[in-house]
């Protein structure tokens, strides 16, 4: 079963790289959906069943459909895609590579976790529900208020002002 992790990881990294390098933003969204599906596979391997299904429904389903919807609403495609100069792209890739080297270097220097993970049942819906509604019930309620404010904020930001409407109707 261990080899499955490496296969999934390889495809995850590949699709993530394809996502940032795709010229067409719609292709970027599709590659990101593939990445999320593969990450969901990792959750399933760790027996985190709740996160597996939530990742599929919320990330790959709702959020990515929202992205795709906005992209198609604005009619963005390969022709309208703004491009950075080759020099700026190279600088960006080198900076990110340096960050990766720093992170991995810190990991090699620090405490290591060589023992393999063991499958547990903490990720089952029952156990997570018990933790969520006893120990974490206050943050859970606060997050619902956050959601409400985000919804109101999105509508408020997206609304046209009155004078704009008049200009359009003229």
């Amino acid at each position, binding site marked *: *079963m*261990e080899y499955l*992790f490496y296969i999934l990881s390889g495809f*995850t*990294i590949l699709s*993530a790289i394809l*996502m*940032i390098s795709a010229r067409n*933003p719609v292709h970027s969204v599709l590659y*990101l959906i593939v*990445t999320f599906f593969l*990450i969901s596979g*990792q*959750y399933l*391997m*760790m*027996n*985190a069943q*709740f*996160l597996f299904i*939530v990742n599929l429904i*919320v*990330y790959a389903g*709702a*959020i990515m459909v*929202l*992205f795709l919807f906005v992209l198609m609403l604005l009619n*963005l495609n390969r022709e*309208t895609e*703004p491009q*950075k100069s080759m020099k*700026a792209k190279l600088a*960006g*890739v080198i*900076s*990110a590579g340096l960050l990766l080297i720093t*992170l*991995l270097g810190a*990991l090699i220097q620090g405490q290591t*976790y*060589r023992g*393999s*993970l*063991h*499958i*547990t049942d*903490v*990720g089952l819906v029952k156990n*997570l529900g018990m*933790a969520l509604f006893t*120990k974490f019930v206050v*943050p859970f309620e606060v*997050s619902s208020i*956050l959601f409400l404010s*985000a919804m109101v*904020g*999105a*509508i408020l*930001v*997206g609304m046209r002002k009155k004078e704009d409407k008049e200009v359009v109707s003229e």
Partner: protein
Amino acid sequence: MSNALPPLEHYIWLSSILFCIGVAGVLIRRNGIVLLMCVELMLNAVNLLFTAFSTHFQDASGQIFVFFVMVVAAAEVAVGLAILVMIYRNTKSVDISLLDNLKH
């Protein structure tokens, strides 16, 4: 255990690589929507690491935290996309390099 998972270290490597790909995406793209997607990729890398540590310590708190990260990400995307649509309405483009008014 015959069906043991790989060591935690490998999960940390995978998450670091995914996070850095997200950072590279933010640095090399100019489309605002793709930038938001790269931020989502970085959040997902962190979520994966949270889940791996939660499995390692056999503690549900890490996976609850992933749940909250997803809540915040959904709220962030809703507001961020609304702002981007407004930017598009005003500038007729999602190119973030046009938003340099603070520079002048």
